[in-house]
């Protein structure tokens, strides 16, 4: 180039390229021609990292009863390339107790690329898996006769009880997503897929160990490298103590059989979940090992949706139990006092009918006892119209107060993986639907009795009962019996005296009201029944309650779908659960038999 003072620099740049390539050629010459050590290393001493799997942490209930443990299983792998030299197929089959024909079929299957995509003659292929110790005992002794064959030990989950499948969750093979997200996993590893197994995966899984072995170019193991200096032992997973009471859980699941529904029990003072039952359920042993995918698909295709954890994922209108919240909020925000009276004309009331017959006018205690719809409509209306004519401000205030009970939102500080949030409708929703000035108290009257757009999960209902039992706070419901969960305390801005009123009303429900048939002498219970209207079919039966009234130790919520009256179906289940937990045993055997044997939904399967 003309007048280019830096023209000569092209040679410098070309020179750099030449020097780099020359240096690399010298290095290649050293590695590939002069240095003899690499050849030996490649032929004799290739390093292989072999993973040692840790045993997964065990899971216990609150009383130290073992719920989930590990069973050892073995799998036999073989490297096809090794099988040719003096391989005695007959002896091998004899060791495993299989026929020659089965052996040939299995080998053909392994070699079939359509069935076994990752097949290679050079890498270990799984010949048989899920074997018990006695199955492999004789092979283990004569393993040296069969080059290329290895026995690999793994563990599978096993369960003491046929219960709590949703809560415990299951363990399955990791997918590509997990591998990309977490360097810990490699293909073929197992991890918790749902429930507690998933939430506490990091605690339960432990830490894989590694053994560095030397392998020759034929893929044969030649022992450990540098006398195991670089090996790392596997660290077993840490055991998990849950808050469940397995006896209570078993009872809840038994009572729900033949029905679609769920039951949740919480210890109010600690937020510990004592039982979390959802029906239809399945036997947790079904989702283990080689049966897992087949059974999983069967569960997935069941139209009653057993995989759904109805206790935390299904949402329902709360119905009458919501009146307890309504009472508390109306008292606190000054719409009513305990002495406020409202008239009730029974089934002739307007705009909301009353479903019970009782005297008129009624005060709060009686209104809760008799679940008087007109009372709560009037209270709600007065609250919405208390200050001015615009509903937005009082409604927002009411909604914030309601949400303090944990309703209509997920417990984000809890260890429950699968949760639905439910919903307490916002002013935005109504503005969108009716226009900013198009709705008034009368438009949303259904809310006053827990119907309409408000939906909650059974877990939230149980937590609501716990919050009332605690008179003004709740601790996020959780499953790990570890004190650290107790810091998630949520206070509710409502005076204690109002709780006294509502608790008295709930006690009356169990003495004089809709729950009186299931009261027992040895225990003072408080509760509220509900019958939630369901546009798709029969009403849902709902009950919340706690006991003993003097010092609540258990709060319960029960929902039975399409069962009709809450008093008939949900109340007895809750009552029996409270008796079981507080008295240590359940004496009403006839009632238990009666409830558990009644089938309300024909398609519910006992998996």
């Amino acid at each position, binding site marked *: *180039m003309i007048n280019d*003072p*830096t023209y000569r*620099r*092209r040679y*410098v*740049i*070309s020179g*750099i*390229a*030449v020097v*780099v*390539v020359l*240096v*690399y*050629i010298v*290095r*290649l*010459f050293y*590695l*590939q*021609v002069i*240095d003899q*050590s*690499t*050849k030996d*290393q*490649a*032929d004799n001493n*290739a*390093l*292989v*990292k072999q993973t040692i799997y840790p045993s997964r942490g065990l899971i216990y209930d609150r009383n130290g009863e073992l719920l989930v443990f590990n069973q050892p299983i073995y799998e036999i792998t073989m490297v096809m390339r090794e099988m040719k030299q003096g391989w005695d197929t007959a002896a091998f089959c004899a060791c495993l107790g299989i026929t020659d024909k089965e052996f040939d079929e299995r080998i053909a299957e392994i070699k079939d*690329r359509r069935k076994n*995509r990752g*097949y*290679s*003659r*050079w*890498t270990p292929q799984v010949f048989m898996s899920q074997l018990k110790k006695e199955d492999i005992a004789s092979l283990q002794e004569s393993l040296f006769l069969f080059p290329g064959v290895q026995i690999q030990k793994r563990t599978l989950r096993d369960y003491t009880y046929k219960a709590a499948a949703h809560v415990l969750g299951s363990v399955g093979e990791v997918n590509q997503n997990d591998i*990309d*997200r977490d*360097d810990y996993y490699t293909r073929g590893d197992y991890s918790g897929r749902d429930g507690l197994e998933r939430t506490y995966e990091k605690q339960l899984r432990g830490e894989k160990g*590694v053994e*560095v072995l030397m*392998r020759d*170019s034929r*893929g044969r193991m030649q022992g450990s*490298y540098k006398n195991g200096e*670089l090996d790392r032992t596997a660290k077993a997973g840490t055991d998990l103590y849950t808050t469940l009471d397995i006896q209570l859980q078993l009872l809840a699941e038994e009572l729900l059989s033949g029905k679609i529904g769920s039951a949740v029990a919480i210890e109010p003072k600690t937020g510990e979940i004592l039982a979390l039952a959802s029906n239809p359920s399945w036997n947790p042993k079904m989702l283990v090992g080689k049966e897992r995918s087949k059974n999983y698909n069967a569960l997935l295709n069941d139209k009653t949706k057993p995989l759904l954890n109805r206790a935390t994922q299904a949402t329902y209108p709360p119905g009458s139990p919501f009146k307890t919240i309504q009472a508390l909020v109306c008292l606190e925000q000054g719409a009513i006092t305990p002495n406020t009276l409202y008239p009730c004309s029974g089934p002739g009331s307007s705009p909301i009918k009353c479903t019970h017959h009782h005297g008129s006018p009624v005060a709060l205690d009686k209104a809760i006892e008799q679940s008087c719809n007109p009372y709560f409509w009037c209270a709600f209306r007065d609250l919405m119209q208390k200050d001015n004519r615009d509903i937005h401000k009082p409604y927002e205030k009411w909604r914030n107060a309601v949400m303090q009970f944990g309703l209509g939102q997920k417990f984000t500080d809890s260890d429950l993986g699968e949760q639905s949030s439910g919903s307490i409708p916002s002013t935005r929703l109504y503005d969108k639907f009716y226009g900013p000035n198009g709705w008034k108290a009368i438009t949303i009257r259904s809310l006053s009795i827990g119907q309409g757009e408000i939906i909650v999960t059974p877990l939230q209902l149980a937590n609501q009962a716990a919050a009332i039992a605690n008179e003004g706070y709740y601790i996020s419901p959780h499953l790990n019996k570890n004190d650290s969960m107790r810091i998630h305390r949520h206070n509710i801005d409502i005076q204690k005296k109002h709780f006294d009123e509502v608790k008295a009303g709930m006690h009356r429900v169990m003495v004089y009201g809709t729950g009186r048939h299931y009261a027992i002498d040895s225990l003072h219970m408080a509760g509220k029944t509900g019958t939630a209207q369901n546009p798709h079919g029969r009403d849902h039966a709902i009950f919340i309650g706690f006991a003993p009234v003097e010092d609540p130790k258990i709060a319960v919520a029960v929902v039975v779908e399409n069962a009709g009256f809450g008093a008939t179906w949900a109340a007895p289940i809750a009552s029996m659960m409270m008796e079981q937990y507080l008295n240590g045993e359940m004496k009403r055997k006839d009632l238990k038999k009666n409830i558990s044997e009644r089938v309300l939904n024909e398609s519910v399967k006992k998996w």
Partner: protein
Amino acid sequence: MRASRNGNIWQHVDWLTIGLFLVLVIFGWLNIYGASYTFDQTSIFDFSNRAGKQFAWIGGSVLMGIILLLIDYRTYDVLTYIAYGAMLLLLLATPFLAHDIKGSMSWISLGPVSLQPAEFAKCIVALTIAKYMGRYDYKIRTWRDLIVPFVLIGVPALIIMVLQKETGSALVFAAFLLVFYRQGMSGYVLWMGVAAVALFIISIRWGAVALPLGTGSLGIMVCMLLLTAVEVYFICRDHYIRYQALIMVGAITAIYGICLIINIWVPMPFDWISMGIVIALVFYTVFVSLYWRKYMLLILAAFTLFCIGYTHACDFVFTRVLQPHQRIRIEVLLGMKEDPAGAGYNVNQARIAIGSGRFFGKGYLNGTQTKLQFVPEQDTDFIFCTVGEEWGFVGSIGVLLVYLYFILHLIEIAERQRNVSTRIYAYSVASIFLFHLTINVGMVLGLLPVIGIPLPFFSYGGSSLWGFTMLLFILLRLDAARMEQLN
């Protein structure tokens, strides 16, 4: 006229480069097939394995090459700055659209395929630099003229390094230093780069080594002496200053020598002595420079201080800024740590795989090391292992020589341009290929730390192949335009 120009493209295009491109791509493809892990592999065209997928990518890249050649060459010039802006936006958006793949946030999935926008950024940055520096009124006179080019390469590099966490892809932008050098940037900048790397290695490798007969930082002492000598002979032309500097080197050596001897009987605090020397040196140079009015010496004093500071900064960067895995890679490379099961595993296995290939290789599809999956990433970043193992010394140097010829030919193309901007672009292309070749092969041969960047045309991956294709074929189009303009 456009039709006839387009018709002529096939006469003017540089067929030799296209030939080299095809040789490299096809040989790379064969090796990806070879690196697939079983001996009884299915067809090379089977789309379920990587060789089959790569075949599809190659088809796409050839098509892309043809399209790039058919576009009017002026289009590239017109679109350059717009493309640069769009590229920055895409790079910024990528971490938010990307899935986290082993810590890197640089992959965008488009249906079944994933693309890495950083691979295409190189080409656009090269075009932008070429356009900016190719203006008739642009010339590198002072360092101020380089501010804009440095910003142009620095911004995308920072985005890729910090937001996308792809250090390797970001380092590639350092290749532009060669382009700046060709355009007139001082050669000292390159030397400073080399010196900085050397100093980094020395202070990391020997910084913490205790002296045999006492305590003290040998590395820092050596660095100081070395750098004083280097700076004097390369920066100062003045004989008096050279003389002064020699006195300093002598004095420092003498002091250390005496201290070492005394150290035999009485342990000496070398750290304090080093510090004393530095302070004395600075005062001495300041005094001399002011007395004799030789202000160059002030720069020398500042430079010495800077070097001392730099060695400490190296230590800080190494222990605090670098990620643990990056630190271990460097420690393994410098022989400070042996870790054949962990960080050193790749490097060690790569060395064994290549070494076991010997002179003529084990033959195509017969490599045991790669087949048994001893070498991780053997079809992407470590593809050169497969070449080394299966084709041996002969095949490996063959590949290196083809690459060398390819790069030298690109420089040849660059120098025959009359249009400055095209020449700058051509140098950018050559430098980027040279950088990739150097880093990738150096890493596989265990001469450089493990930095995950692909070997152009060889490594499996659509984004990198397409990125390099774009880089190359735009150059071919611009080169062909040279003849068209002549006509």
